[in-house]
């Protein structure tokens, strides 16, 4: 797929957060390189999973896709139009098509608003009156996500975590968006409830053709729901792979280590497999290693890995940023 045919495309996107360095005479500002030059083309109707450990920049990436965080540099292209520098007023009509579902269903809903008000807010903001009136449409949406429409006048605290996440989803799909970023939508939920929400997202994707960017740290959830999986590490993309291929043929050493670390609900697999134990912790994004960012923890690293940043190359069905792909 090329940038021209993609529904949503980002090119060389970076987001650096300035932080003050300590010290009396040192007024220099340090930068946390949360997202450091990522490029990605997303086709219409596709579900792209972004996976990585905490601090890898996946949430910052997701938010800057929608310009909820202004990117430091790079381009965001939606439907062929460069939206990187659009003013908020120009951006507003587009917001109807670009939506987000948040991680924590407890803090994403205003506790003093009824569910009806929360789900109808998008109509009010965009000045849209749906056929049959707002209330009818909101009740239809509630039914769509598996909530009882009679609970229209209830407040968020009267709902469980899974139901609140459904409210967040109803709000996000109210304006029939084309592109939804789901930021860890199931990680706060129990296993049995998590499966309900994953199934709901899959139904929405199938029936309404919504393009989804699914961000999560849980590799098995991401692999389950996505068509393609993007593996991030320290603000950079390590590997982009077809989700079915990722498990059978991981190309990047980091992907391989990540896959080997995910515990699976199957004692037989667990007893027989070799875990790749990565030594050490994630380096600081303020001072990332030179060359390949993963080189400090990689068992395959050679001299070139410490000095030269690897380019994205095509290996089999994956794109991978590694000097020595598998």
């Amino acid at each position: 797929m090329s940038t021209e045919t993609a529904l949503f495309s980002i090119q060389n996107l970076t987001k650096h957060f300035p932080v003050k360095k300590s010290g009396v005479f040192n007024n220099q500002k340090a930068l946390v390189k949360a997202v450091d030059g990522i490029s990605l083309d997303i086709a219409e109707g596709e579900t792209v999973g972004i996976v990585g450990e905490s601090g890898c920049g996946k949430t910052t990436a997701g938010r800057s896709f929608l310009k909820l965080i202004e990117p430091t540099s790079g381009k965001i292209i939606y439907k062929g139009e460069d939206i990187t520098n659009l003013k908020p007023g120009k951006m507003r009509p587009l917001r109807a098509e670009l939506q987000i579902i948040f991680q924590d269903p407890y803090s994403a809903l205003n506790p003093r608003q009824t569910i009806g008000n929360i789900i109808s807010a998008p109509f009010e903001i965009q000045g849209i009156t749906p056929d049959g009136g707002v209330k009818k449409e909101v009740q239809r949406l509630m039914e769509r996500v598996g909530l009882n429409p009679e609970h229209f006048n209830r407040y968020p605290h009267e709902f469980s975590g899974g139901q609140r996440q459904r409210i967040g989803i109803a709000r996000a799909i109210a304006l029939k968006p084309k592109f939804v970023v789901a930021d860890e939508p199931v990680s706060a939920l129990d296993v049995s409830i998590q499966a309900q929400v994953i199934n709901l997202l899959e139904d929405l994707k199938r029936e309404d053709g919504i393009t989804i960017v699914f961000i999560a740290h849980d590799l098995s959830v991401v692999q389950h729901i996505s068509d393609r999986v993007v593996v991030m590490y320290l603000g950079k993309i390590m590997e982009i792979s077809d989700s079915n291929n990722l498990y059978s043929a991981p190309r990047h050493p980091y992907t391989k280590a990540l896959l080997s670390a995910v515990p699976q609900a199957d004692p037989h697999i667990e007893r027989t497999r070799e875990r790749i134990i990565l030594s050490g912790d994630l380096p600081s994004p303020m001072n990332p290693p030179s060359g390949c960012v993963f080189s400090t923890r990689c068992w395959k690293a050679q001299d070139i890995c410490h000095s030269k940043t690897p380019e994205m190359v095509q290996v089999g069905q994956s794109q991978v940023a590694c000097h020595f792909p598998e």
Partner: protein
Amino acid sequence: MTSLLEISNLRVSFPTDDGDVHAVDNLSLTLNAGETVAIVGESGSGKTVTSLSVMGLHNPRSTKLSGSIKIPDGDQVIDVVNDDAEKVRNMRGRVMSMIFQDPMSSLHPYFRIGKQLAEAYLVHNPGKKEEARKRTVEMLDLVGIPEPAKRAKDYPHQFSGGMRQRVMIAMALMNTPRVLIADEPTTALDVTVQAQILTLMQGIQKEFNMGILLITHDLGVVAAIADRVSVMYAGNIVEQGSADDIFYRPMAPYTVGLLNSVPKITYGEKQRLQSIAGQPPSLINLPSGCAFSPRCTYIENAPAGSCAATLPDLVGVSSSHVSRCHIPESDRPQVFSHVAGGK
């Protein structure tokens, strides 16, 4: 007493203005040396309450406990439920100790970690400061902290999440306990760090021949390190057996539902997840009979009305495997999504 820990008929409830919250109901469990027993369940199933009761960390004024929790200490046996608090305190940290979920909030931010570790030793060995210092460095080294003598002088905020959890494990091991209770020890950690910690726990278990009681909601972690598993739902054990029994031959509809809800990393065609409808019940107002019956898809396989009428007993499927269900064994649901493993 041959086992390290014997819980029988434990009931825990919290009286509130709206009625009693029945957190744990009639739980029995044993833990042997060198063995890992996992308690799995979703939030509110009573697993953490169980672990706190074993440590004697419940608040005696707001908690009603009955049954017994017996732990042998030398030639005597202490009952955490019925013996007085002084005896339990004398044993806590020495015979049994605990690792908590959140390593950030379980270490004191104002004190150097060396001091916090030494304190755990000094409580049971008063005055032996030099030994405590030596032991601190030894334990930090054992859990894989580089330059342990130097790092003992650091504060908790100078460690990463995974390193902090290692410090917590070192602290729990200061008096070489025989029972280690791990309450969601890796839930706050990233998967690669989780793999490090699980490997560390298994190594330490072998070295000290410890019994580990693992509390978790993560079936993957259970499959990785547990020998035996108890599945809890709304305060009751619904199924108990070896790890293979639970994962390959589950008999309780709830266990089957739980296993079907977990997405598995697959090679080919993906199957739709089979979720459990509805949500866990309120512990104040439990459904009559089997607490899972309102969410159970297989209820019509049971004798009419039996599920709502009485809570089924834990019945043996084999010598090591018990489950709680009214449905005749031949009509119980199967796990459908297991692709690999399984015999």
